[in-house]
C-alpha cells in the first residue's frame, strides 16, 4: 500500500493525467504504519513554487483575533478521533475567553506547513520516523520546563529519543500508546484445548495442533505489505532483538558497516527471521492474494486462530462479528517466557518553534494533558497512557498486554526505524513467498549501507 487514509491527498507523479491514489483495503483504524506515508505530495511542492502569495495570507491566521483572545491552531487529524477532539476544543473555547483554539483536522501535509513557515501552534500527531525528522532538525520547541513532562514515564519518553534527539531537549510529549501483539480467538483456542503460548516451543506446538485439527493457525495478508512489516516482522524481530540498541549501533557505524560486523541485519535478525518464516508457513495458503480487508473479514468470521494485527483491527473485526471473544498476546520468540509487546506513540504533543503563540499553545497542551482528559481518551480508544499511575485498561481484548506495558517490556517495531525509501514491506513479501530469509536481510543491509553513504 502506498497510501493510507491520509495519503489520499497525494497525487501521482504523472502530472495531471492520473487521479490521487487511495487505499484499496481501507486504513487500519488506529495507529501505525499508514501514518508513515503522509508526507508532502508533489502537488504540495508545486504549490510551494507557485503560491508564495497565499503563504503570507495564511501566516496571518495565527495572530490575535478581533475579540482579543489569542488564536491558536491545533492540528489533529487522526480520522477516528477528530470528532472526539472537536468536542474537546469546543468545550475548552466556551470555558474561557483568553485562548481561542481552532481545530485543524485537515489531512494536509505537515512538512509543507513547516516549509512555508506556518506550522500549527500545537500538534497532536502520530510520532514516527517521519515526525522524528522535525525533532532531529530542531523544528520543535523545548517543552522540558512544563510540569506535565515530569508525569511521563521515562521509559516511554525514551521511545521518542530512540528515533531522534535535538540538543538534549524534550520536544515531543507522548500522549497515547498503542500496544500490539497477536490477536487470538479465545473460542478457537478453548475448542482445541490450546493455551496461550508464552515460549517459542509452545508457539510452534500451538500452530501444529491447530494445523492438525484442520484450523488455519495464522491468517496472513501478504498482499498488503504493511501488514507483514508491522505484524510478522516487527513481532518476531522485536521479540528476539533489542531493537533500540541495534539501531543505535547501526546509526553510529554509519556507512562503515562491513558484512562481518555483528551490527548488520543479517547477523542480528537471522534467527528472528528464520522463526518468522516458520510462523508464516502456518498461514492460510492463499495469503499472497489476501489483503488487510480480507483478513479482517476472515478472522471476524472465525476462519483462523491467530491474526498478526494491532488494536486498530478490532473495530473492523467488530463489523463482521461483534460477539467474538478475542484477546492479544505478545508473539513468543524465545525458548523461555521472556516476551515483549510492540508499542508505538500513536499520539504525541509538540509545539513548533515557528509558532507565534507558544504560551497559549502550552496552556492548551496542559489542558489536554490533565489526567482525567488524557486517561479518558486512552481508555476510550483501546490505548495505554504514557503517564505514571495511569488507570488500567479494562477492555479484555487488550488487557492481557497491560503487565508488559506496566513493566516497560516493550519495543518500537524494527520496521518503523527503516525509512520508507527502503521498501521493507515488499522485501518481506518476497521473503515469505520464496521462504528466503537470508536474501531478505542481505538486501536490507545493502540498502541501508547505500542510504548511509548518501545521507551521512
Amino acid at each position, binding site marked *: 500500500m502506498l497510501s493510507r487514509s491520509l495519503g489520499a491527498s497525494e497525487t501521482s507523479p504523472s502530472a495531471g493525467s492520473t*487521479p490521487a491514489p487511495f487505499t484499496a483495503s481501507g486504513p487500519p483504524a488506529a495507529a501505525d504504519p499508514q501514518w508513515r506515508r503522509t508526507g508532502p505530495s508533489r502537488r504540495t511542492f508545486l504549490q510551494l513554487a507557485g503560491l508564495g502569495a497565499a503563504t503570507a495570507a495564511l501566516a496571518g491566521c495565527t495572530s490575535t483575533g478581533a475579540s482579543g483572545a489569542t488564536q491558536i491552531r491545533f492540528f489533529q487529524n487522526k480520522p477516528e478521533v477528530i470528532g472526539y477532539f472537536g468536542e474537546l476544543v469546543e468545550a475548552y473555547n466556551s470555558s474561557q475567553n483568553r485562548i481561542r483554539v481552532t481545530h485543524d483536522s485537515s489531512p494536509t501535509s505537515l512538512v509543507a506547513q513547516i516549509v512555508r513557515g506556518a506550522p500549527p501552534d500545537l500538534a497532536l500527531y502520530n510520532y514516527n520516523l517521519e515526525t522524528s525528522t522535525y525533532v532531529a532538525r530542531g523544528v520543535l520547541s523545548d517543552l522540558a520546563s512544563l510540569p506535565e513532562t515530569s508525569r511521563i514515564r521515562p521509559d516511554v519518553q525514551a521511545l521518542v529519543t530512540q528515533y531522534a534527539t535535538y540538543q538534549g531537549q524534550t520536544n515531543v510529549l507522548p500522549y497515547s500508546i498503542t500496544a500490539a501483539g497477536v490477536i487470538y480467538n479465545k473460542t478457537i483456542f478453548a475448542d482445541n484445548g490450546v493455551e496461550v503460548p508464552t515460549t517459542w516451543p509452545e508457539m510452534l506446538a500451538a500452530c501444529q495442533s491447530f494445523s492438525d485439527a484442520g484450523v488455519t493457525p495464522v491468517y496472513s495478508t501478504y498482499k498488503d505489505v504493511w501488514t507483514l512489516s508491522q505484524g510478522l516482522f516487527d513481532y518476531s524481530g522485536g521479540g528476539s532483538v533489542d531493537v533500540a540498541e541495534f539501531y543505535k549501533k547501526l546509526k553510529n557505524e554509519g556507512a562503515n558497516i562491513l558484512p562481518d560486523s555483528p551490527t548488520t541485519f543479517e547477523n542480528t535478525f537471522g534467527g528472528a527471521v528464520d522463526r518468522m518464516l516458520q510462523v508464516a508457513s502456518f498461514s492460510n495458503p492463499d495469503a*499472497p492474494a489476501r489483503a488487510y480487508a480480507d483478513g479482517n473479514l476472515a478472522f471476524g468470521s472465525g476462519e483462523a486462530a491467530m491474526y498478526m494485527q494491532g488494536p486498530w483491527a478490532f473495530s473492523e473485526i467488530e463489523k463482521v462479528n461483534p460477539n467474538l471473544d478475542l484477546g492479544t498476546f505478545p508473539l513468543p520468540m524465545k525458548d523461555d517466557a521472556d516476551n515483549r509487546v510492540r508499542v508505538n506513540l500513536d499520539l504525541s504533543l509538540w509545539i513548533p518553534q515557528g509558532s507565534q503563540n507558544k504560551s497559549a499553545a502550552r496552556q492548551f497542551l496542559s489542558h489536554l494533558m490533565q489526567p482525567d482528559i488524557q486517561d479518558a481518551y486512552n481508555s476510550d480508544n483501546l490505548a495505554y497512557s504514557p503517564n505514571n499511575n495511569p488507570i488500567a485498561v479494562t477492555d479484555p481484548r487488550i488487557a492481557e498486554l497491560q503487565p508488559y506495558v506496566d513493566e516497560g517490556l516493550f519495543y518500537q517495531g524494527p520496521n518503523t526505524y527503516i525509512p520508507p525509501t527502503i521498501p521493507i514491506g515488499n522485501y518481506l*513479501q518476497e521473503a515469505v513467498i520464496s521462504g528466503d530469509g537470508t536474501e531478505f536481510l542481505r538486501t536490507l543491509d545493502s540498502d541501508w549501507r547505500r542510504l548511509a553513504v548518501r545521507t551521512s
Partner: protein
Amino acid sequence: MTTFAPTPVEVHTEAPHVEPPVKTKLVKWHGERADATSYIFLLPAVILFTLFITLPALIGMIYSVTDYVGFGDSKFIGLANFQALFSDPRILSAYAFTIGFSLISVVLVNIIALALAIGLNSKIAWKSGLRGIFFIPMVISGIVIAYVFNFLFSNSLPTLATSLNIPFLQSSILANENLAWIAIVIVTVWQSVPSMMIVYLAGLLAIPGEVYEAGSLDGATKWRSFTSITLPLMVGYVVINTVLGFKNFLNAYDIIVGLTNGGPGTSTFSVAMTIFTGFTSGDYAYQMANAVVFFIVTVVVSLLQLRLIKGREMSL
C-alpha cells in the same frame, strides 16, 4: 491522456493577405509574419506552463545536487546522488521493468487499437454504439480500473480457473513474481486502447475512398490494400501513438499502485513509483536526481523514436 492533432497543420498566412491595422505590431520570424495577437493568445499558456511545469522542474534539478530532505537546510553535494543512483539495484531494476513494460504495452496497444479502428470504421451494424462501448475505458479513472481488476485477478479469475480446472491460474497472478507484470500490461492496454483508437479512427477517415476504389480496380486484396494503402498513409498517426504512448507508459504509476503496489517483492516497481517515495521518506534530493535521469531517458527515447520513424511518412 491528451489527444493531439495528429498532423500539424501548416499555417500559411500569406494567402488571403489583409493589410493589418496600423497600430498592430508585427513580428518578423523565419520569414513569416505573425500577428501580435498570436502571442497574446499564447501568453497564458506560456505563463502557466513556466510557473507550474518548467520552474518546478528546474528547482527539482537544483535540488538533485544537494542533500535536501524536503525542508530545512541543505548543502551542495555535487553528483553524489547520481553516483548512488547508478549503483542502486532497486532503481536499476525499476528502469528495466518500466522500459520493458512500456515496450510491450506500446506494441500491443497499437496493434489492438489499429485493428479495432479498422473494424469500427468498416460497414458494420451498431457502429456508433460499439464505438461508444470501446471508448468507455478511457473515461474511467486509472486507479478505479486498477482496483476493479485487482479484485478480478485476486478473486474472480482464481475461482473461474478452479471450476474450469486450469491449474496455473488457480492462484492469483498478482501474487506471482513472474506473472504479475502480465496483469499490469493487460490492464494498461485495456485502458489505453481507446485513446489510440480515436487517433487511428481519425486517420482512417482522412483517407479518401477513391484510393481504395482505385486499388480494388487493380485487383488488390483486402490485405494488400491494408499494407499498401492504409498503413503507409497512417504512418504519421502511428508515430504519434507510439511516441505519446511510450512516454505515457514510462510514467506508469496509478495502475501499478492499484494492482500490485510494486509487488510481489519489488518485481513491478516503476520508476515513477520510486521517484514518488522521495516525497515521503526524506529522500527528496536523491529521488530528484532519479527524476532528472528519468527525464533525460524519456527525451532520448522519444527523439530516437521520432528519428526512426521519420521519413517513412507518406502523403497523397
